[in-house]
Structures are given as structure tokens and as C-alpha cells.
């Protein structure tokens, strides 16, 4: 329970408040639009004595994650934040952070990747980290950003998991827009939920010297990687427990996916991030006009919530997946659409899948667009299209 105050926060500030309330020890980050204000806010917290942490003003994102790896290995609770080019510069270290099994938490204000350079939002950056063995949560409100980061520490530090977690949200559309957010009045509310214990991961302690980051030859490397497979599988259960405990304690409920207006709908739109808000608005408008369409929000991208999705997809005639990233040259270029397709095939469901790509580089997508996609999809269904041959690039000038 605890006491909460309701204040207006951008998602960036919500991320900074979460890091503060989780009492992080070390923050190492490098500025990049649209992430910048996360780090500025944390710097303010430290300057005001609201957070006792070492802020490492690194000279690059590569060093940001490197310093986080060092700090976590020394037993600290660490936080970093980035976007787009910064995340790409960290790429090498993403795999090392997870391979070393360090519970690092990072927030991502998602942004399009260069070239051409674009500071605007989309999910190309997050999708490019797909195979890095980071648990990946995509939030669609500032409250969810705050809550997810708190949850992230609890999951990451669980000895059955010990994997880093990233919490992503829309660059600009969320990072720079204000919403009312409940934050803990006193940090102890949060720390009772995510206590700071003696680290349960491998740490560099002179009293118990160990070698971290050893060479993995062919007779060992594979087992290390398989342990990561097991860990991320385990995280499904741990995430579930953490969501439940969080809900019970704080009365804000989260799951792997969220749905809206599914009763009586045999078509649903699946998306992630802030766009889910636009989709639910569109659903309301369509409902008023007499058309029942459901909405599905993918909240946890890694580990992929197969079971939860199947439970919903199996009742659907068609699912419309709206992606905000492109997997160039892929069998289906919407990255999430491709995973949904794999999920459908796993259980041989006869749910049709229509893949749309939209809001790339933050091209505006309105409720009207969403409704038009639904119309288009219904049309495709009538023509018997159970799978879009290619992803449909919504609103692009071809």
C-alpha cells in the first residue's frame, strides 16, 4: 500500500522517479534526444540530496553500459537510459550485460535509427536488441513506465533470472508529454517491494575472489548460452509473480498483455507502446458506430508471452498487427507481426494475420488511420487473405 502522491510527469521523468525510488546506487548515462531529461532529472535528484548515488558522466553510451556492468559487478543497483543511436552504440555490451547475468535496468525513449537521422519516435532501436537476452517491457503510459521500472528491479535481481531489463516507451509522444502519475510519497514503500539485499549475483569481492567474463571455449560456451535460455524462460514465471505481487500491494494491475473490448470481437488490433492509446480510442469510435473490434497491447516483448497470446488469438478470426519498426528483407517485415505469426503457427490456429507498418519515424497515425486499417483488413478477410503477403506500409508515399 503505502502513501502515494499524484503528480504530472512525462514518461522520462517517471523513469527518473522510479530510479530514485528504487534507490539506485550508480547511474551512468549519456545524453541523447529524446532520453535526455531522464538523466537531467536524476542529476537534479542527486544534487538535491534526494538520491544518494554516484552519477558517472561517461563520454559515450558504450562507456555508460560498460560502467554499469562494472558497477553491477561490484554489487551496486544500477540504472541507465538511452535512445536509438545510443542503444546501437551499446549493442556489444547488451550481450555482455546479459551474458554476465547482471541485473541492470535501462529505460529507452524509443527513437528511429539513422540514416537519415531522425530524432523522432519509433521502435527500430528496441527491435534491434531482440536477441540480446534482455527482458523487454514496452510501456504505454507514464504510470506504467514508473511501475515497470520498479518491477524490473525485482525481476532482474531474482536469482532464478539475473538478466538485465529494458523498459521502453515512445520517444516524444510519451517521453515529452505529461500525464498524472502516482509516485510513492516515501521511497520505503517501493523498497519494501524491491528490498536492497546482499547481491545474489556474482560480485567482485576480494574476500571471495572469482573470475568474471572468462573465455568460453567450444566445450563450455554453449552451456552458458543455454543457461540464459533457461533464465529467460524462468523469467516468465517470475514476471507473473511480480506483476501479481505488485497488483496486490499497490492496486495497479499489469500483465504480459493487456486487452480492450475483446468480448464479442472477432477482430482485434495488436500493437505496443503509446499507439495502444490511439487504438483503444479508435475502438471506442468504431463501437459507437456499431463495429466491435478488440485491442491487444503487447507489454512484454521478451520473453515472448506465447501462452497469454494464444489464449486470446484462438478466439479471433483475424488479428491486425501494427508495427512501428521494419525488419528489412524479412519474411514479414513487421517484427512483432512475424512473432505473432510464429505464435499462431505454434498451435495451428486459423486466425488470419494482417501486418501493418505505421508511424515509422513518428509519421502521425490517428484514430482515423487505425479505423481505415480495420476497414482494409475486413476487406482482405472478405477476399480470403489469411496472411498479408507482405507487411502493408500504411501512409507511405510509394
Amino acid at each position, binding site marked *: 500500500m503505502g502513501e502515494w502522491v499524484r503528480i504530472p510527469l512525462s514518461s522520462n521523468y517517471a523513469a527518473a522517479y522510479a530510479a530514485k525510488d528504487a534507490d539506485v*546506487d*550508480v547511474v*551512468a548515462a549519456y545524453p541523447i534526444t529524446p532520453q535526455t531529461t531522464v538523466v537531467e532529472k536524476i542529476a537534479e535528484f542527486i544534487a538535491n540530496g534526494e538520491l*544518494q*548515488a*554516484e552519477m*558517472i*558522466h*561517461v*563520454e*559515450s553510451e*558504450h*562507456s555508460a553500459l*560498460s*560502467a*554499469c*556492468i*562494472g*558497477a*553491477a*559487478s*561490484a*554489487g*551496486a543497483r*544500477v540504472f541507465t537510459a538511452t535512445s536509438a543511436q545510443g542503444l546501437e552504440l551499446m549493442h*556489444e*555490451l547488451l550481450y*555482455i550485460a546479459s551474458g*554476465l547475468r547482471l541485473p541492470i535496468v535501462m529505460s529507452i525513449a524509443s527513437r528511429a535509427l539513422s540514416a537519415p537521422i531522425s530524432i523522432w519516435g519509433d521502435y527500430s532501436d528496441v527491435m534491434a536488441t531482440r536477441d540480446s537476452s534482455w527482458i523487454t517491457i514496452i510501456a504505454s503510459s507514464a504510470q506504467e513506465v514508473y511501475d515497470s521500472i520498479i518491477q524490473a528491479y525485482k525481476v532482474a535481481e531474482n536469482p532464478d533470472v539475473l538478466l538485465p531489463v529494458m523498459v521502453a516507451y515512445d520517444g516524444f509522444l510519451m517521453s515529452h508529454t505529461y500525464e498524472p502519475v502516482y509516485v510513492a510519497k516515501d521511497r520505503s514503500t517501493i523498497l519494501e517491494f524491491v528490498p*536492497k539485499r546482499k547481491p545474489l549475483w556474482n560480485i*567482485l*569481492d*576480494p574476500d*571471495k*575472489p*572469482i*573470475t*568474471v*567474463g*572468462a*573465455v*568460453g*571455449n567450444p566445450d*563450455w560456451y554453449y552451456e552458458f548460452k543455454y543457461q540464459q535460455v533457461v533464465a529467460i524462460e524462468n523469467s516468465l514465471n517470475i514476471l507473473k509473480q511480480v506483476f501479481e505481487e505488485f497488483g496486490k500491494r499497490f492496486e495497479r494491475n499489469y500483465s504480459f498483455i493487456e486487452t480492450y473490448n475483446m468480448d464479442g470481437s472477432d477482430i482485434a488490433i495488436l500493437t505496443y507502446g503509446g499507439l495502444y492509446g490511439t487504438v483503444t480510442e479508435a475502438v471506442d469510435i468504431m463501437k459507437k458506430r456499431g463495429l466491435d473490434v478488440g485491442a491487444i497491447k503487447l507489454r512484454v516483448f521478451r520473453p515472448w508471452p506465447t501462452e497469454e497470446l494464444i489464449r486470446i488469438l484462438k478466439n479471433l478470426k483475424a488479428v491486425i498487427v501494427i508495427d512501428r519498426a521494419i525488419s528489412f528483407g524479412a519474411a514479414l517485415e513487421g517484427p512483432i507481426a512475424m512473432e505473432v505469426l510464429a505464435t499462431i503457427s505454434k498451435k495451428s490456429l486459423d486466425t488470419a494475420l494482417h501486418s501493418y507498418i505505421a508511424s515509422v519515424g513518428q509519421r502521425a497515425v490517428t484514430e482515423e488511420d487505425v479505423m481505415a486499417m480495420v476497414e482494409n483488413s475486413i476487406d482482405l478477410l472478405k477476399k480470403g487473405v489469411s496472411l498479408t503477403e507482405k507487411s502493408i506500409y500504411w501512409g507511405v508515399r510509394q
Partner: protein
Amino acid sequence: MSSSPKLHYKTVFDIPKEELFAPGHGLCAGCTAGTIVKLLLKVAGPNTVIVNATGCVEVSTTTFPYTSWRVPYIHVAFENAAAVASGIEAALKVLKAKGLIDPNKRVNVIALAGDGGTADIGFQALSGTLERGHKLMYVMYDNEAYMNTGIQRSGATPQYAWTTTTPVGKVLRGKIQFKKPVAEIVAAHRIPYVATANPAHFLDMMNKFRRGLEVEGPSFIHVLQPCTTGWRFDPRLGIKIARLATETAMWINWELDYGEFKVTVPVPKRKHVKHYIRLQGRFNHLTDRDIEEIQKMVDSEVERINKVVGKEIIGPVVE
């Protein structure tokens, strides 16, 4: 600011017996990196965390499930030893301040990287770490090439040296460019302590390690590390070649302690550079004229250093 203390290691009997670098590593027979690391750990003692960049030392000492390290050790990547070390230092500092670990326990944080991991790919992370002023020591073991990947040139490879990417052909003969003056560039960061060292002068080297660990702020020790495989010399000659490097003034052992410059190993009578060069296969292609050209460059460097010191700390060539 504190002034340079009395020398701690005066004879071999001052060297601790405790071995924190375990035998059984996979460095080449005759590799001088092992000597450097072993002595480094003797100075640092058990309350030490080593951050090692990818390179010969790392791959030869940490093949799972074995390790040569009796102190906590971490390897993360090739170019970020300084950044990782800065994270560890910051963590220890704040965990002490928060009372989460023993505030009275002094732990040495030491980054250890090759010339490639320092002078080239790791330079940005190093510079950032120095500028931020973390209390840690960075040891660069300089074998003057990317040895782990098979003797490719680095920014620290000396001019004319053969490497696999600066081959000796009909048109080009070894590396064209000069060796990057890494320690001087580091010194330009105005950190408390910078030194160059040489395992042949091991007491001098150990005193520098000790001083580097003592100062409040970053320290940097640039250690010459003759490499039998890459420099093409008989494995038994490593330390002899290291000594010749100093005796010929191809390598000058100096320190810069809170701005005070000192040549710590004076060379009253200098040897001709040919004694150093002719022992190494990587310079096999050099003619006597080429060697004279190198001698001239060394002469002018000696002159420069003597001017800085204000006396003839390194003497003329006598043999």
C-alpha cells in the same frame, strides 16, 4: 597533493612471496606479460579488483573452468577496461558511503589492457575515465601490436616494425608511422601520476605500481612488454631485450608525480640502438642506414628529455 615517498622496493627481498597470479596460464613461454602481472599483483595484494581488456593476458589466463587470478577479476570487452573500472570504483565508493560495504576497506581498482586496448580502440574510454578523475590505476602492457589476433599493427607499434598488417614487401617495408606517445598524451590529462616502466627494471616498475595505487585519483603506468612471438626473438631473451630498450634509450623510464617529472632509471652510458634492434626479427629488414636513422631519432629524444630534466640524465652512446 602529496610528494613522492621513499622507494618501497629496494631489493628483491622486499618483494612479497605471496603469489596471486597462479601458475599454469597459457601465455607463450618467455612472455614478459606474465612477469609484469605477477609483480603487479604482488604490489597490489589481495584487496584488488582487476579489470582486464580483451587481449593476450585475458585469453591466456581465464579459459573456463580455469583461472590464473587469485583476486577478483573481470573481463568485459576490448575497448572499455577504463569505463568498467570507473563503474567499479564509483560503485565501491557509493556502497561504502551508504554503509552497504565496509567503509574502511581499501580496494585497489586496476585496469589492465594491451597497447591496442589502450592506445587505439580503448582510448576514448580511457580519456573519459581520466578526465572524470576516478581513483584507479590503469596499466598498459605494451607489446607494440595486436598480439592476440596475430601481430597486427597498433598505434603503439614503432616505426619500421614488421607486423602482419605492415608487411615487408617490395614497396612498403614495415610500419610507416611513428609510435603514438601514449604516456605523454595521458599526462596531458594532468592526472596525479603517470609513469613508464620496464620489467627488466622490476623494482622501479613495482615502486611505480605502488605509487600509482597510492595517489588520490587516476594513475597510468605504461609498461614495455617484449613479446617473443610478435617481435620474433628467442623466448629466453625477453628481459634482456627489455633491458636493452632502456640501455639504448629506445624506452625511457620516467614518472610524472603531481607534475614533477623524473627519469627514474638514469643511463649514464648509452648503447647503440642496433643492440636492441638486431635481436628482433620484426626489424630484420632494416639496413644499417635505416638503423642509423632510428639512432638519430633516439638521440634527439634523449636531448629533449635531458633538457626537460635539466641535466644529462641519459648519456651519450658509448658502445
